[in-house]
C-alpha cells in the first residue's frame, strides 16, 4: 500500500473506508447516517483513525465524538485546511 497524502483523504475515500469495515457498498453509506447504528464500533473507529492519521494528525477521540460521515469530514477538512490543502 502506498503512503497516503493529505490530498488523498477525501470524503469519498472516507466513505469507501467506512463501507469496507462494514462490508457494505460505499453508496449505502449516506453523509448523515448514524454510523453507530450501522455497526461502526469503537475498534473500527480506532482503526479508521489510525489509517487516516497517516495523512493528518488525528486522535481517535476526535472522531469518536461524532457519529456521521459529514461530521468526520468536517474535522478532516479543517485539518487539511491547516495544512494548506484546498478542499
Amino acid at each position, binding site marked *: 500500500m502506498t503512503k497516503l497524502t493529505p490530498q488523498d483523504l477525501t470524503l469519498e475515500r472516507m466513505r469507501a473506508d467506512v463501507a469496507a469495515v462494514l462490508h457494505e457498498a460505499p453508496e449505502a453509506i449516506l453523509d448523515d447516517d448514524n454510523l453507530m*447504528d450501522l455497526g461502526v*464500533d*469503537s*475498534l*473500527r*473507529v*480506532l482503526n479508521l483513525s489510525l489509517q487516516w492519521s497517516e495523512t493528518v*494528525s488525528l486522535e481517535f477521540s*476526535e472522531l469518536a*465524538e461524532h457519529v456521521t460521515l459529514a461530521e468526520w469530514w468536517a474535522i478532516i477538512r479543517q485539518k487539511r485546511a491547516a495544512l494548506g490543502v484546498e478542499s
Partner: protein
Amino acid sequence: MDDGRAAGSVRAPATEAPLSEAQSGLWFAQRLDPANPIFNTAHYVDIRGDLDIEAFRAAVDQTAVEAEALSLRLVERGGAVVQTLDPAHRPFLRIVDVSGAVDPAAEAMAAMRRDHETPLDPTRDPLAANILFRMEARRFLWSLRVHHLATDGFGMALLTNRVAELYNAARGGPAPGLAFNPIAKVWDEDAAYRASDKRTADAAYWRDIMGDAPEVASLAPGKATTAHRFHRIERTLPPEVTARLRARADAGRLSWPDVLTAIGAAYVRRFSGAEEAVIGVPWMGRMGSASARTPAMIMNVPPLRLTLDEDAPLDEQLILASKALIRTRRHGRYRSEQLRRDLGLIGGARRLYGPLVNVLPFDLPPRFAGLDTTLKVLGTGPVDDISFTFRGDADPALTLEVDANPDLYSLEEAAAHGERLAAFLANALDAETLGEVPIATPEEAARELEAFNATAYPVPDTTLTALLEAAMKATPDAPALTFGERTLTYAELDRRTAQLASALAARGVGREAVVAVALPRSLELVIALIAVLRAGGAYLPLDLEHPPERIAAIVRAADPTVVLADQDIGGAFGEALLTPVDWPLDGASPVVDQAGEDAAYVIYTSGSTGEPKGVLVEHRAIVNRLLWMQAEYGIGAHSRILQKTPAAFDVSVWEFFLALISGGELVVAPPAAHRDPAALAGLIRRHAVTDLHFVPSMLSAFLADPAAKEITVAHVFCSGEELSAELRDRFHQTVKAELHNLYGPTEAAVDVSYWAAGPEDRSRPVPIGRPVWNTRLVILDERLRPVAHGMGGHLHLGGVQLARGYLNRPDLTEDRFIPDPHHPGQRLYRTGDVARRRADGAVVYLGRSDHQVKIRGLRIELGEIEAAVIASGLARETVVLAREDRPGERRLVAYLVPAEGYDPVALKAALAARLPDYMVPAAIVALDALPTTSNGKLDRKALPAPVFEAAAGRAAQTPTEKIIAELFAETLGRAEPAGADDDFFTLGGDSLLAVHLMMLIRERLGRDPGLGALFDRPRVVELAAQIDAEALDFDNGLGVLIRVAEGDPALPPLFLIHPAGGLSWGYRTLARALSPRRTVWGVQSPALDPKNALPDGIEALASVYVDHILALGAPNFQPMGPVHLAGWSVGGVIAQAAAVELERRGVEVGLMAMLDSYPAECWRAEPEPDPVDALRALLAIAGYDPTQYPELRSRAAILAFLKAGDSALGGLPEAALDGVIRVVLDTNRLVRKHHHQPFGGRTTHVRAALDHKERDLTPGLWRPYAAELDVVEVPFLHPQLTGPAATALIAPALDVRMTAAEEKMR
C-alpha cells in the same frame, strides 16, 4: 436530537449538576462503605530518559485545569447530592524526590499504595492526585489517582495522552489538538438522555432481552459485593496467539475484540456449567458523545447473554456473538444499575451478570517524545466478582489481567483462571467447535483423575458370608443380636441362620439365586438376611410399607427363588413363600463355594422409566465398603450398632453387618421406632449404642426433641441427603459424638466417600469428602473430560464398589455404567449428581443433573411418578416437579393435562396404590396445556405454584379442630388456619416441623398424642379426634378405673395406680409406650368425688381397688390371667398393698412394680408438709415444673394459673378440683399411718438413680416386705420417671417382666 447526544446549548456552562446515573451507583456504594478505597482508580507511567520536568509540570497542570471532572466535589444539600467544580481541588503536579532512598522504587511504590489505598470522602477530599516520583536522574514514576466518580478507564487514557500531547508540543512537536470538552457538555447529554425517548426504548429493549434470563452462574459461589481490595494477575499473551486471533477475526470478517469477548464468555459458560453465559461487557460509551473528549465517569456494564452451542461450528457462534455485541452497544447507554432495578435484582444474591470480559484496545502507553514509557494499571474500581481484561492492540501486544474479589477467589484460583483462560483461548482459536476445546490444564486433569483418587488399599478376596461365619466362630458366646429383651449370642445366630440356610438350599437357593425378604424389623429379619447369604444367594429386601402393587411388581421383575415373609402380600409370592413358623429347627449350613463376584444383595430404587430398578451388588463390593468402615472408625467387639434403617434402603446394609463381622452387637430397633425421636433416644441410652445412622432430615427432628439432649455415642453417620452446616453445628451443641458425612448411591455399595464433620469443621457447605478404599470419584464434563479445578461437573464413580448393574435390565445398566475412557477395561458409574472439588480435594455436592430428587432422604425418580400418572389413564400429559416454594420445604407437584374422566381423587388413589407414600404428589394441578418455551421445551418457570388448600374441605369446627388447624398454620408459616381435612405433610410438614407441632400441642392442649399419632393421623380432623378421644376418657374419667391406652385384648392389662394427687393422668406417656401391645388402666382415688368419704387407710383403699379390678373381668381382661400392677411414688405403696390383697384373695399377681416408692416408715418421722406444698403438687400433676413458679403459693393463685394455662387439669369442674386438693392433702395422713404387709411374689423396684442424694433411700428398704426383690435403676430424678425419656427405658423393662410372668403361669 432525541438521544441527547451533542445537545447544542447556548446557555452559560453550568457549574453544578445532579449526579449522573453512572455516578449515583458509585456514590451510594461509597457512602455505604466509606472506608473502602476500592473506588480509587490509579495507574502510573514509568518514564525513562531525560524528562523535561518543567515542560512536564506545565503539561500536567494544564491538563488538570482542562479536565474539569478532576476538580469535582460532591455537595449534600437537603437530602440530595449535587456535583460542583472546586478549583481548589485541581490535581496540580507534586514532585517527590525519592532518589535518596535505599530503594527508590520501593519507596515510590509504597507511597503510591498509601495514596490509592486511602479511602476518599467525595464531599470533602480532592478526587484526583498527580505525583511525579524522581527515582534517579533519568528515571521517573508518574502516578495518577482519580476517584471513580470523576473518571473511568477511557478518561484515564485521555488524561495521559493529553499530558503527552502538551509535553510533546512544548518540546517542539506538532501543535496540540483541541482541549477537552467542558464537563457541562457531558452533564447536558446525561440530562437529555434521561428525558429522551431513546432511554425509554432502551429500557424496553433490555427488559425484553433480560426478562427471561436464567439464574446467573459465575465461577465461584458467594455474594458478589466488592471487597476493599482485589487480586490482580497479569499475563502476556504470546504473539502467535494474537496473530491467530487477528487471523481468525479477519477470516470471519469480525473484530478481534468481539472474538475475545465471545471466547471469554465460552470459558465462563463452560466453567460455570450454566446453559448460557451471562457476562458483563464494559462499554466505554463514548461514541458520538462529547465525552469522547472529556474525562468523566461514563462507562457502563451492560449484560451479554450468549448460548454458545458447543457442538455448532465455532465461526457461526462467533458471528452470533458479534451480532449480540452490536445490539448491546446500540442500547449500551442504559445504565445496568437501572436495569437491575427494572428486573428486581437489587439486593440478595441475584445478579445481572457474572464475570466481566473487558477488551481495551485503546489503552496504550502514552508516547512522550524522547522518552521510554510503560503504563501500569493499579486499580480500575470495584471488583464485584472476577474480571478478565484484555489490554493492548493485539498487534502483537495483548495482556490478560485477571482481577478477582478476594472474598470469592483465592489468589491461586485467580491465577488458575488466568492460566486456563489463556490456554482455552489458544485452543479455541484453532478449534472447529467449542466442544472440542478442553478446559482443564494437563496438570489439573491428572490431579482429578489420579492424585485425588490414590485410594489403593489391599482388601482380602473374600465374601460377606465368610466374614460373618468367621465372626460367629471367633466369639460364640458374645452377644450378637438384640431385639427388645431378646438377645442372641454368635453361637445362637450361627445355629439359627444355618438352619434356615439349609432350608433355603433345599428349596434350590444357591449362588446367584435371589431370595426376597419381606419381614418387619425383628431377630427373624436379620436371621433371614444372613441365612440367604449362607445359602449362597442374594437377598432382596422388600419394604412392607410400600403398596402391595409395587411389592408385587418388584417380585415379578426379580423372580426370587424363595420369599421369606410372614404372609403372601397381594398374592404375589405363591409357592415361593416361606414363613418364619415353617423355618426348621435343625440343619447345617450348606457348603457353598462362594466367590467375591457373586451377587450379595439386590436393592430396588425408583426408576425413571416408571418401573423400579434392582441394583445388584456383589460380595467384593460390599466387603470393601464394610472393611473400610471397620478400619476407618475402629469398629470392633466393643461396638453396639443400631439397626433402624428399613432394609429396602441401602444404608441398612452396613447397619446389619458391620457389627456382626466385627464381634460387636447389633441392636435392632422396633418397627417404626426409626421415626420416633424419643423412642430412639431411649433405645440409644438403654442399649448403650455406640454407632448409628441418620438421614439428615431425621437427625434434625431427633435433635429438636428434648430426649436427644446430651446423648453420647461414638459415631453418628449421615447420608442420604445433604448435611447442612447448620445441622452439623446444631448436632455438636446437642449431642456428644463424632459426626461423619457419607455419600454414595445404591449402585456403588452404599457409600463411596466420607467427611468428618466434627465441631471444628467450618465447611459451608459440608463436603461429601474423599473416596473410600479402592474407589474413584471423578468429576467430568459433558464429554467425559476431567473438569478444571473448582469447576462443577458430573460426578462419576469408579472402583471395586460398583454394582454389577440392574437386575435383568442390561439396557439400563449400559446407560449408567459406562466404560471409563481414562482407564481402559474399567467402568464408571454416572451418578447424575453434580459436584465440585475444593482446593483440598474434598468433593462438594451441588445438585442433580436430571430429575431425580430426594425427599426425606428417599431417592425418587420423577419419571416414575410421571409414568404412574399416565398409567392411571386419567391424564394425557404430565410433568412432576419437586418444588421448593418455601426454603427447606420440598414438595412433589404433578402438573397434568386431564384425560377423559379425570378426577383428582381417583388419581390420588391410583397413585397411592402404585407408589410408596413419599412418592405420591402433595398437589395435583390440572392445566389446559403444559407451558412451553419458544423452542418447544417445557417451560418449568411458567408452571404455577400450587395452592395447598382443603379443596373439598370444610373449615375446622370443633374447638380442638380449630386449635389444631391454627397450630398447623403456625408450624407451617401459613397465614390462614388449615382446613379440617388438610394433611400436615401435604401442607409441607416434615418430621422436624412435626416435632415442633407436637411441642405446640403439648403447650396449648396439655396433651401429647405422640409423634406416631401424627404420622398415623396427619389430617386436622383425625388428629383432633384422636386428642378428643383421649380427652373424653379423662373427662369421663374421674371414676376409679380409666382406660389410658388400648391394647391387645388377649393380653392381661396393666393397672397403674395413682400417685398422691389421686389422678392417673400422669401415666399417659408410659401407657402409650406399652400400647398398642397392652391395654393400660389407670386406677384413681374415689375421694376425687367430694361426695365420697375419705378412705380409712391404704389397705382399705387397696381393697377397693382390687374389687374394681376383679369386677372388671372379661371382656376387659381374662380373669384367669395374672394381674399386673405398678405405681409411681405413693402409687407404688398402694400397688404393694393391692398385691398383698390380691394374694390374700388367691389371685395371681404378675408384675408388681414400684416406680421409686419407699416404705411408710421413711416418712413417719418427717415433719408434716406445708399445705401449700401439697397444693403445689397440683402443678406437677398438670404437667408443669413447680420449681418454675415459686410465686404460686395460694389455692386461688394455683387454680387461676391452671385455668388460664389451658391444661387438662385447668378444665376440670370446680368440684373435681376440690376433690384433687382433698386427695393431695389427705395422702400424707394415709401414708404415715400405713403399716406394710409382706408380699409373697416378686417386688420390682424402679429406682430413680440420680435422686436421693440427701437421703439414703434404697430399694433394699422393701426387703422386709418382699419375698423377692428385683431392682431396675434408671438415670433420672424421681419426678422425671413418668416423662418420655425415662419411659423409653421403663416401658420395655415392665413389658418384658409382664411377658415373663405370663409365660411362667402357662
